């Protein structure tokens, strides 16, 4: 059984690669490369998988998942300029593809502390940059 919990964070970013010249950046990233950045209300769906505990009826203790996501992701990502405020994006362009990888790495790293047993496991995450742009990663 899978349980999916939805989280939200607001963050700004700028798509600009130091490896490319200004014209190339402009051509590749368009207005996403505007020098002062811009923001999105990101929606993050986190899916846990496992058996429902026969006594509690729960696959995942949602409050524990909330704490994990809050500590590992939201507290650093929410209301931040990703390029400037997060170490991971000092040398990595914060495209949604890269953001979802960083989030997955962070969740995977902290998962065993929050859920030390065999279950639940992280099944995957989905990141919605806008209603029209959605990214998914299976763990």
């Amino acid at each position, binding site marked *: *059984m*899978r*349980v*999916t*919990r*939805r*989280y939200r964070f607001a963050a700004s970013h700028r798509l600009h690669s130091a490896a490319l010249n200004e014209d190339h950046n402009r051509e590749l990233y368009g207005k996403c490369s505007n020098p002062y950045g811009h923001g999105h209300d990101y929606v993050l769906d986190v899916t846990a*998988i*496992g*058996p*429902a505990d026969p*006594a*509690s*009826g*729960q*696959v995942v*203790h*949602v*409050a524990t998942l909330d704490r994990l996501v809050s500590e590992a992701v939201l507290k650093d990502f929410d209301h931040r300029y990703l390029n400037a405020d997060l170490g991971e994006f000092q040398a990595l362009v914060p495209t949604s593809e890269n953001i979802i990888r960083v989030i997955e790495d962070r969740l995977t790293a902290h998962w065993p502390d929050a859920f030390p047993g*065999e*279950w639940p*496991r992280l099944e995957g995450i989905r990141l919605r940059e806008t209603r029209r742009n959605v990214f998914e990663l299976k763990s």
Partner: protein
Amino acid sequence: MLITRRAEFSASHVCAQRTLSPEQNKQLYGAAANPNGHGHNYVLEVTLEGEPDPVTGMVFDLKKLKELIQQAVIDPMDHRFLNYEVPPFDKIVPTTENVAAEIWRRLEPHFQAGRAHLNNVRLYETEDLYVDYAGLVAEDLG
């Protein structure tokens, strides 16, 4: 091919185990353990899988699916207090997980013979929390 029908019902529940103390239930279920219960607008998505009938062009008659969902789920659960009025939730805790599995058990027998079979039950408790249940698969056995 997958086809999905959506339905909604509103119900109240309380998540607590009789064998646990109020403090233990609060620890496990949070506000959902408040003794007099609370309610949700549940959203149910029932997904069938099959190939379209070459004559009708349909995997399953969605009108018939709507009626099945109505009879098996909506009529017995809508505007009810699940713990008191909808077995087996007099005996097991009506978490979203257990309600989704119960909905699967109620619907699945209707899809054993025909060309469409039940692929997934998705139950939203809120916009921010949903459960997918696809029958007893490996991970459900632990």
